[in-house]
């Protein structure tokens, strides 16, 4: 492992963060040019002139440093110049009235820091927009300044003060020295302190930072306090240079120069910040792939016995008539669709044919490519190769609009709704009826009412959408599809948030659409729904279609086999054991909304417990509410401390937990940061040396140690973690927690999206952790994975623990329990 690679730009052993250095360099350069040009003439290159330029720039430089901290965190601080002026005025007034400069200077810095902290409080803890908060602060503070001074400058400062700043030890003026010292200090702060590292992580990905136990809001708060402090420093320097302070020195224009100075380099941070607030631009393809893994998540394998029988009955009497018809002239034909996401093959020549007047089930296990294929059809993802034929005619789908124009309607799984608008507007937004140039609201509501009745909704079309329950919002989405009588309808797991009555209503609608000649693609995890509703089936696996045919041609076991391939029941990595000792973790009566209901369980040291449930059963929410990533409503968590079980808060539990999220790229890792920083992010506190600075050697050896222990394949430690393979990325996530030696691991889908050997490695690692004494609670939608390591199973359904099984439970037991039909043989 070669780890001697160093980041470019190292000059004295410190890694200077580009976010700080560039603005300063650019600022100094541009100020030099500007000031130089205005002095242009024979004097430009004279030593004194250069020094003057430097002095004039120095307070701006300090300023830019302060602004950089805020911008790295993804914010902006418009109030800095006003803060600087206000603090300087107070300090100057104090000194003018005979105060000691030794007190006056701290006053300036203190006042500025207080104002910055105020911004930080509002932004970090009240969730207000940085732009407006600091705009308001700017207005208030500058208003106060002009009011206090009547827009006059406060002059007559003590000579001791101004003289000090005129002093030139070794020919270098004090302000320039100060700028240098402050720049170095800021660079050290960014590169070698826990705060700096945390700030960078927060700027890149606040969600992942939070999971990594970084106190996100505190860090953001501190960044604003710091920007205030640096505004104060700049104030001190400027006041001394001018020998006075005035409200107009820090006028509005300066801040924008500074921001733009920072922006030249730092705007990605700002964009990132905006994105994290849910409003940024997203790369559709990539994002879709990560954010909606659900369709590809897992198949509910309700076991064949009863369902199988019902399906036969249904099949003989009903929809099966359509089955097995000749498909050569299929209405919709997806031909050899291929798609790669950053090199990874998501679709490999996928084929799908759907006739008019048929409901076509699309099945597939985790990562099979169903959702990607449907996103290609919906115009959300662009295919790399292949052809889409509708009614024998090739079509190009370059965006959702093309797709809609070709008669394709897509009921997305996630709530694609406009929450501040009315139900009627949500239904008709893409087809607004107009009278002249205006929207005909009466007609719209009338038609919406009819559609709502069709989907069985009982609320008024004038209701604001945001006030509806999730199920009702789902009905609105379905009603939206009915507006256009689409020829092709894609339903992506439409029933997960519906009650059984609403579900029956939806099935009626789908049958009506079928009767009307629509080609319907139906993605579901529920086998019983499929047999009840669908005519034909296509099964996908690893981006390819592995089987297609009439529903009647398959039995449930056939389908399972097709979906999973010839996955053998992986060998057990560890024989199940029974643990009887005192628990390490005891949870009682945990509730969070409807997602987690009255959950009780114990975990013992060394025990691996599988939390087995279907998608939407509340398994992820349970894990998240344990460590406070989602707030719990009620419930008690106790942890063994020296023989007794002490109550702890979720935040406290988080501090002793290795938490592996299901969304590795979105929440698990800070993708642009190097492997090394990702590995050490949660244990920086242990790497501190003198002056509480991170010791590079300690950090490197920790990272080296983890890399070799987990056999992470990296070229060098400075490699961005983004460039690693999925399995190696997941090892980095584990490694980060390993370094903190937590007594508890909560693993949400730890093997998701990994290849077979990587899965085995991660599971072995899990067993290793338990052997070393940790308690492990693991969620996986792949039962086979759980069955290789677990000592005990908790079955969760609709937010409640419905059954508990010992480690030798059979697959059937667990499947039955999870589908809400507790088997009579349950232990």
């Amino acid at each position, binding site marked *: 492992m070669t780890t001697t690679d160093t980041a470019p730009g190292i000059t004295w052993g410190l890694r200077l963060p580009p976010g700080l250095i560039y603005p300063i360099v650019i600022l100094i350069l541009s100020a030099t040019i500007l000031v130089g040009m205005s002095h242009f003439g024979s004097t430009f290159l004279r030593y004194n002139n250069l020094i003057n330029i430097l002095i004039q720039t120095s307070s701006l430089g300090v300023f830019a440093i302060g602004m950089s901290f805020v911008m790295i965190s993804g914010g*902006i601080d418009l109030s800095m110049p006003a803060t600087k002026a206000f603090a300087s005025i107070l300090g100057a007034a104090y000194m003018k009235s005979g105060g000691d400069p030794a007190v006056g200077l701290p006053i300036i810095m203190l006042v500025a820091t207080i104002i910055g902290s105020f911004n930080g409080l509002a932004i970090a803890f*009240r*969730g*207000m*927009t940085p*732009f*407006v908060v600091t*705009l*308001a*602060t700017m*207005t*208030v503070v*500058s*208003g106060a300044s*002009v*009011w206090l001074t*009547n*827009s006059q400058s406060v002059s007559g400062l003590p000579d001791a003060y101004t003289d000090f700043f005129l002093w030139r030890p070794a020919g270098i003026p004090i302000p320039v020295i100060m700028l240098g010292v402050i720049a170095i200090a800021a660079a050290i702060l960014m590169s070698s302190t826990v705060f700096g590292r945390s700030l960078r992580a927060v700027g890149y990905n*606040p*969600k992942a930072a*939070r999971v990594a136990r970084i106190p*996100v*809001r505190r860090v953001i708060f501190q960044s604003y306090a710091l920007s205030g402090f640096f505004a104060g420093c700049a104030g001190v320097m400027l006041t001394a240079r001018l020998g006075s302070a005035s409200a107009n020195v820090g006028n*509005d224009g300066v801040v*924008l*120069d500074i921001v*733009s100075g920072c*922006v030249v380099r730092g*705007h990605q941070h*700002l964009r990132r910040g905006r994105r*994290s*607030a*849910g*409003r940024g631009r997203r790369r559709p393809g990539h994002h879709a792939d990560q954010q909606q893994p*659900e369709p590809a998540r897992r198949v509910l394998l309700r076991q064949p016995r009863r369902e199988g029988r019902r399906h036969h009955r249904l099949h003989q009497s009903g929809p099966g008539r359509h089955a097995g018809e000749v498909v050569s002239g299929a209405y919709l034909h997806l031909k050899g669709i291929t798609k790669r996401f950053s090199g990874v093959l998501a679709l490999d020549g996928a084929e799908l044919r759907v006739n008019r007047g048929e409901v076509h089930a699309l099945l597939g296990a985790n990562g099979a490519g169903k959702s990607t294929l449907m996103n290609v059809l919906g115009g*959300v993802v662009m295919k790399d190769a292949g052809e889409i034929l509708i009614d024998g005619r090739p079509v190009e789908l370059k965006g*959702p*609009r093309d797709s*809609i124009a070709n008669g394709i309607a897509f009921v997305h799984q996630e709530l*694609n709704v*406009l*929450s*501040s*608008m009315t139900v009627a507007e949500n239904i008709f*937004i*893409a087809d*607004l009826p107009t009278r002249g140039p*205006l*929207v005909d609201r009466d007609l719209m509501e009338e038609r919406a009412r009819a559609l709502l009745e069709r989907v069985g909704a009982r609320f008024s079309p004038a209701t604001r959408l*945001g*006030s509806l329950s*999730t199920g009702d*919002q789902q009905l609105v989405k379905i009603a939206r599809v009915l507006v256009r009588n689409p020829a092709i309808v894609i339903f992506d797991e439409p029933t997960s948030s519906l009650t059984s009555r609403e579900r029956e209503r939806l099935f009626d609608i789908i049958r009506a659409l079928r009767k009307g000649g629509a080609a319907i693609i139906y993605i579901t995890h529920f086998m019983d729904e499929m047999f009840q509703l669908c005519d034909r089936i296509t099964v996908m696996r690893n981006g390819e279609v592995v089987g297609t045919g009439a529903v009647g041609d398959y039995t449930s076991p056939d389908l399972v086999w097709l979906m999973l391939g010839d996955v053998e029941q992986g060998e057990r990595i560890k024989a199940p054991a029974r643990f009887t000792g005192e628990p390490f973790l005891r949870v009682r009566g945990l509730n*969070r*909304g*409807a997602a987690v209901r009255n959950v009780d369980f114990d975990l013992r040291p060394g025990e691996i417990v599988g939390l087995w449930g279907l*998608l939407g059963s509340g398994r*992820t*929410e349970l894990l*998240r509410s344990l460590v406070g990533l989602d707030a719990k409503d009620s419930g008690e968590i106790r942890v063994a401390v020296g023989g007794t079980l002490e109550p702890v808060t979720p935040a406290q539990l988080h501090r002793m937990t290795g938490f592996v999220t299901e969304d590795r790229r979105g929440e698990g890792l800070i993708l642009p940061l190097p492997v090394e920083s990702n590995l050490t992010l949660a244990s920086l506190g242990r790497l501190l040396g003198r002056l509480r600075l991170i010791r590079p050697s300690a950090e490197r050896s920790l990272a080296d140690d983890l890399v070799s222990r987990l056999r992470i394949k990296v070229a060098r430690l400075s490699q961005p973690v983004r460039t690693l393979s999925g399995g190696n990325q997941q090892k980095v996530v584990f490694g980060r927690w390993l370094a903190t030696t937590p007594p508890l691991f909560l693993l949400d889908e730890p093997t998701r999206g990994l290849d077979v050997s990587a899965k085995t490695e991660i599971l072995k690692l899990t067993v290793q952790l338990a052997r070393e004494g940790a308690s492990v609670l693991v969620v996986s939608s792949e039962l086979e994975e759980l069955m290789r390591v677990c000592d005990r199973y908790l079955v969760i359904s609709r937010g409640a623990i419905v059954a508990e099984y010992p480690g030798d439970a059979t697959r059937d037991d667990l499947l039955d329990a999870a589908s809400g039909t507790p088997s009579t043989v349950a232990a």
Partner: protein
Amino acid sequence: MTDTTSGLPPAILSRSKRLRAATLEHGFVGVLVLIFLFFALSTNHFATIDNVIAMLHTMAPIMVIAAGMAVVVLSGKLDISVGSVALLSMAVGSFLMNALHVPAPLAFVAVLLCGALLGALNAIIVVGMGINSLIATLSTMIALRGLGFLVSGGNSVEFAPAVRALGNLTIGPVFVDILLAAAVVLLVHLVHVRTPYGRYLNAIGNGEEVATRIGLPVRLVSFLSFVISGTLASLGGLMTSLQVGGFTNFLGTGAEFTAVAIVVVGGISLFGGIGAIVPGVILGAFTFEVMENGLNQMSANPFAYRLVTGIIIFVAMYVDSLKSGRAEPDTA
């Protein structure tokens, strides 16, 4: 997968919560009335018809600019170049009138065209190049102001007497620019609330990605929003210039901040998709005007106004954060 519990039906909200919501929704109007009453009672001249008309006259230009800003904000973006757009457009306009002796009506049309073009420039950067709107308009704000100075040569220009008279033209006791501003704001409101374009705009403010998936012409709508904002900014600049009788290099300075403040105080959320231009922009602009005028009438220190302005923005912002529930832990 996490928010399965949000969006309880309103009936479930307790009475106190409804009261709270109502206070948040309408409380600001109450406060404005109280402030108005305070000034009315403590000064002699404040609550006279003449003074109210004078206030409306003064606030007319910024109201027009804020209406344009509101269009962009409703789609979840920002346009802080409006002040510079006003300056550059007017610099062009006064150059046409004074140096080239173009007839005034033609020059006015050129001013608006110039505003529309500059808006389109912003749109190209934001929509076409995919750059964050704050950053993009920040850079055009700086660049366009510089360009404006270049066109004007840094000189102030006095308009011809016939043109100057336009700024104080009245119908009865009411200034024409009040009517113009009212018409513009109402029209923009109508566009937002009643036309497909306005509804698309609101939908984009709810979530750009969602709007894209639904199949709305997101890019076109966003593009036009900047053009509207630019056009109204230049109109506001024109109105201001006519009021003062000439072009000055201070035109539009700080207008972007005032416009954002008006929009925020008017209850239009910076997160997009929430709020209404009428009464939002009118109330917002009126609030600031009442404060300035009232403090003036009380012969308060003229500089106190800025302090109060900031506090108003802060309060409005705080209310907005309470309304949208953004104070919940780390929603980011």
